[in-house]
């Protein structure tokens, strides 16, 4: 028996104990944002939607620069009012600008096609500014609100007062009081708009604040700003994107709604809401004036919503498998 036992020295050789190498952790490389976009672009529909959206944004920002929209250019030619696409093409045959009249003319002889792009620009800019203001204030306030207990008590009282007032009421009364300019409009949309985002965010922070790893971190003496930025925020990226996905299109809808009820942007600013409002009385008679702005508004909001939801799904680390 003993002869058959192999010499242990023959089977094993010593390896140099490299203390630096042993500190390294061998794991597949993981980059959060790379994984997010890998998951996001795995869906073919997202490519398509981004393509359409880029076209829309480029159109909205480039076409008004090349071909400025002037709603009053034909205001003295009553014969050019409310022309259908084919009639407008015939009427402006000498102009050499067939694309301009592709959707016919509006109630003032204005080009619907140019109007849509100028209006879409206003709506997109408005939505982005409002969303940026509300999201930044809402997320920062929400994080502090969720983390600080004394701040929480004060804010809850304020929130309970404001949340009970219908949002429409706040906005309409504010627009009525401070006027209908572009910036006052943004002010009305953001003065209380961040509150609901902050409240939603506060609840999410509350849930994560007292998780074990956060507690452990606090016990080890990590300062609060670092806990918020390193322990809590990464967890809430998908929450932020989900809120953004519903917020962005909601401002476009809100502008359309407010213009329709007559408290929208002032008359000299072209906007989708104003175009819809002007065309809605004759929407059965002059459908070409009404449906293009509606379609553009619907298209922008649907694309933003779906893209946002898909991005929110992709930002959830659980989908990165």
């Amino acid at each position, binding site marked *: 028996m003993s002869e058959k036992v192999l010499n242990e020295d023959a089977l094993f050789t010593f390896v140099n104990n490299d203390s630096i190498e042993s500190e390294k952790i061998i794991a597949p490389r993981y980059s959060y944002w790379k994984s997010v976009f890998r998951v996001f672009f795995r869906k073919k529909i997202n490519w398509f939607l981004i393509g359409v959206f880029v076209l829309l944004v480029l159109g909205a920002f480039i076409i008004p620069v090349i071909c400025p929209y002037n709603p009053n250019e034909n205001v003295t030619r009553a014969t050019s009012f409310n022309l259908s696409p084919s009639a407008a093409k015939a009427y402006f045959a000498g102009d050499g600008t067939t694309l301009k009249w592709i959707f016919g003319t509006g109630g003032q002889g204005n080009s619907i096609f140019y109007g849509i792009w100028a209006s879409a620009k206003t709506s997109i800019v408005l939505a982005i500014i409002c969303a940026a203001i509300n999201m930044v204030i809402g997320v920062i306030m929400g994080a502090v609100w969720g983390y600080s207990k004394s701040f929480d008590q004060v804010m809850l009282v304020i929130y309970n007062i404001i949340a*009970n*007032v*219908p949002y429409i009421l706040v906005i*309409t009364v504010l627009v009525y*009081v401070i006027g209908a300019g572009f910036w006052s409009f943004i002010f009305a949309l953001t003065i209380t708009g961040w509150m609901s985002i902050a409240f939603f965010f506060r609840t999410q922070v509350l849930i994560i604040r007292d998780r074990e790893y956060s507690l452990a971190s606090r016990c080890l003496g990590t300062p609060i700003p670092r806990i918020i930025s390193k322990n809590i925020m990464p967890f809430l990226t998908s929450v932020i994107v989900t809120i953004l996905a519903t917020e962005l299109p909601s401002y476009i809808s809100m502008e359309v709604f407010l213009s329709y009820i007559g408290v929208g942007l002032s008359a000299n600013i072209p906007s989708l809401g104003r175009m819809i409002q002007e065309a809605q009385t004759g929407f059965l008679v002059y459908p070409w004036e009404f449906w293009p702005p509606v379609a553009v508004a619907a298209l922008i*909001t649907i694309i933003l919503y779906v893209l946002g939801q898909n991005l929110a799904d992709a930002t959830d680390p659980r989908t990165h498998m």
Partner: protein
Amino acid sequence: MSSDVSIFYKTMKKYLLKRILFSIFSLLVVILTVMLLVYSLIDRRVIFQTDDVWNKRSNNERTFYEYTMYQKYGYLELANYTLFLQQKYVSLYGNSYVSNADFIADRNVIQDAEKCFDNETVQEFIEYYEGEGYTISYLEPLKYGNGRTKPGGTGYLIATRERSMFLRLWDYLKGLFSFESVNNVQDPELTDRYIRIEKDPYNGFYALVGNGTTHKYLIYFDSHFPFMHWNWIHLNLGVSYTKYRGQEITDVITTPTGDLRVVTTQYPAKIGTDEYVETAIDFHSLTYNNGTLTEAEMENYPDKYTVSTYRNNGLSMLETSFVIGIIATIGAYILGIPIGILNARKKDSILDKIGMWYIIFIGSVPSLAYIFIFAAIGTKLFNLPYKFANAQVKILAYILPTISLALPSVGSLMKWMRRYMIDQMNSDYVKFARAEGLSEGEIFSQHISKNAIIPIVHGIPASILGCLTGAIITERVYSVPGVGNLLTTAINGHDNGIIVACTVFYTSLSLISVILGDVLMSKVDPRISFETKGGR
């Protein structure tokens, strides 16, 4: 067990009381904020933009009219020299002051800008009101070169004092509720004042009848919504400034419209006889007549309660909105919840995919867009009436607004129901039920649905009470004569009174519905308690 229940109700009562008190507090804050915004930041002259009287007047008369209107709408307190003068001379000479020479001289002196301030009574007036904190304004008489007064150029001497916002709020709150009392009628001839339950001669039932109160019938019943009618308490949310000039908003939205409804009935004095009349007068609405009665009135009425309103066939603004809203809400719950459950059960099926696209469409597209799409489909394909007023058959006019209102709620109910169901499907008790051998049908109908519906229940009071505020876009698109556009038309017409009234109305409805939602949820789910102790 029974003590547990009583403790539960005790904590609930305490909790509810706290909630209600806080709600009242927040309502007060909201009213004060809106009043501050509307009454101090908005140029007060906008209320004259559509005022005919204001347009007809000119110069000093117009300015004076403005001041009287500001006083009427509570912006300021106004004192007029002429009234001051009258009071002074009445106290000196009684009713014969009109022919007194001093009086005439004092009255005419304000038409002479040079001598005006030398006058003793004018000095008295200025001294008195400046002492009270008023600002004196002298609207100098405007004259042509030949000494004749320009149109509207009469001189006025007035004193004004701004009202503080807290005083306005206090006035508003004081006027919010008014109760009938036996001393409401200021008539010394009326001696027998009472409030008692009497048999109602118009329907054989009982009614609370008053004598000395403004209304004769304080509480009565009839066959019309809301069946029990309250006259003894009156809610005054505010007075319209421009659109319904001077009318109370609560009256505007609850007054029925449409043709008069004539019924066979009897005058109050003729009850018991066989004298019947065909009339639209609603004898339940009788109020006290402060003037002298005519011959016919004396014959037809046993007392001085002779002023009445008429019966109408149509619905009031509030009822119109409520009818459309409640049908839409019920329809949405009947459709939305089962579809949501079905989609959750058959997750990723073709039906679920269609449902998801519908939810995305409704959730993201501006509501205006899909309401117009429904309108276009309804009018083109089904030949339904588009504008409410143009409908030949009245009932058909309700179809499109109701559908337009119901379909978005179906979408959101579907979305939440589906989501709550899927959340529940992964929980342990479902796995346990499955392990026990329950069929999928049983698990869904007996276990998951019951748990998933709890959060949905919370929204029911809000959707029912929400019907009272009407729907802004739907009512505008189809020109429904409802309450939905009260606020928006008020804003377009600078009707500050309605804006404040709407704020109070909408905010209190939403406060009430949140509290009711919480109570309802705790009734449906016994696990939810109002215990504040323990936990985090």
